């Protein structure tokens, strides 16, 4: 990793110096031990802040979209001929590039507005999982060494194996290396375990209907509609989310449980062909709602029904933007 981080910093410096990027979004060391946090680097000398390790959780594509949108909005008041282009550099692992591809396919910005610094990824640590693995103790300090996380905690020294505390989405990640990049830092990381990608979904599918429903409402009861999942999701970039729309109002804001269910149902459904399984929503959810159980189903259906995996290739069309007469199955159509 050290090697990658060095290269990453060099690359970032070079980009800023050569003015190939106006800003670079990457990760820096977090204020808490064993964390990293997104950072925005605009000066070459700041590049040394950059880190790349298993504690870099967020999907930075979200920030790419935010920055470009903010820039475009600021340019709206500028005469068209005076408008300036802003290029965003971004440190991107597999899932981040998938999100970037989705943004590009959905024309959120041009390919020339983003400079992708690809990095290999062997998964990130699920903070909540780590804490659970050490019995909920507060981590005072820690380090990663040879696949072992060694920690000083409020309850003494603890160790956890990295592979055990990786986020669920990372364990079965199919795309842990960048799909597209302008420059690749480091060589490709070894494959994770994608064969097990849908094991949980399959298991859930096999459960009786009422048991599934019970689980769904139980999970939804946890949700307090803080919208953190939406805020973290790179695919959630609507200028006005349907939740906030009036005329008509799609989702009630009262306390009826069905409103929460419907809210989540709709947001999840918006992910058809668009969820890259980056885990951002899960990691930010303060209530620990098992969103991935449902997102993975949407992913699985998209793959099985239309042969589409979100953001897996620049050439793909959004699956809901087409229809394949010859290959789409018609078995859901009712015939009396």
């Amino acid at each position: 990793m050290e090697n990658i981080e060095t290269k990453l910093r060099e690359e970032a410096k070079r980009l800023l110096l050569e003015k190939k990027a106006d800003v670079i979004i990457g990760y820096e060391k977090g204020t808490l031990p064993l964390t990293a946090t997104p950072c925005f680097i605009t000066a070459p000398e700041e590049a040394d802040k950059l880190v790349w390790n298993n504690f870099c959780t967020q999907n930075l594509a979200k920030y790419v979209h935010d920055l470009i949108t903010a820039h475009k909005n600021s340019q709206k008041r500028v005469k068209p001929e005076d408008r300036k282009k802003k290029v965003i550099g971004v440190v991107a692992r597999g899932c981040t590039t998938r999100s970037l591809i989705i943004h590009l396919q959905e024309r959120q910005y041009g390919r020339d507005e983003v400079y992708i610094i690809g990095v290999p990824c062997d998964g990130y640590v699920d903070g909540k999982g780590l804490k659970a693995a050490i019995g909920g103790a507060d981590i005072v300090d820690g380090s990663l060494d040879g696949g072992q996380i060694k920690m000083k905690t409020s309850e003494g020294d603890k160790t956890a194996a990295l592979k055990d505390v990786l986020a669920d989405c990372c364990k079965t990640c199919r795309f842990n290396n960048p799909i597209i990049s302008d420059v690749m830092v480091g060589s490709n990381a070894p494959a994770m375990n994608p064969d097990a990608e849908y094991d949980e979904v399959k298991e859930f599918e096999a459960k009786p209907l009422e048991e599934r429903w019970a689980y769904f409402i139980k999970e939804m009861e946890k949700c307090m509609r803080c919208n953190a999942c939406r805020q973290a999701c790179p695919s959630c970039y609507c200028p006005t989310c349907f939740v906030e729309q009036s005329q008509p109002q799609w989702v009630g804001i009262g306390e009826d449980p069905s409103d929460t269910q419907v809210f989540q149902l709709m947001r999840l459904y918006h992910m058809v062909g668009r969820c890259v399984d980056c885990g951002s929503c899960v990691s930010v959810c303060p209530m620990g709602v098992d969103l991935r159980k449902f997102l993975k189903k949407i992913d699985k259906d998209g793959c099985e029904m239309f042969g589409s995996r979100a953001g897996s290739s620049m050439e793909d069309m959004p699956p809901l933007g087409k229809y394949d007469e010859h290959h789409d199955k018609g078995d859901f159509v009712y015939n009396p």
Partner: protein
Amino acid sequence: MAENLANKEWVPKIVAVVCNWCTYAGADLAGISRIQYPPNVRIIRVPCTGRINPFYIVKALQTGADGVLVSG
């Protein structure tokens, strides 16, 4: 549906969101041909199945429909 039907056998409430050019016309034809069918369907006409926002189905279920039929 009305309360006075409540004491009779329960009949499901079904919402049908249908395309103007195909199904709606077919349903009209059923009428013209006097083909009888259960009276528990409420049709919402839209210009084309492509117009049907999937959330209509969700909202219909939330409003209390026992079944939602989408027909193109």
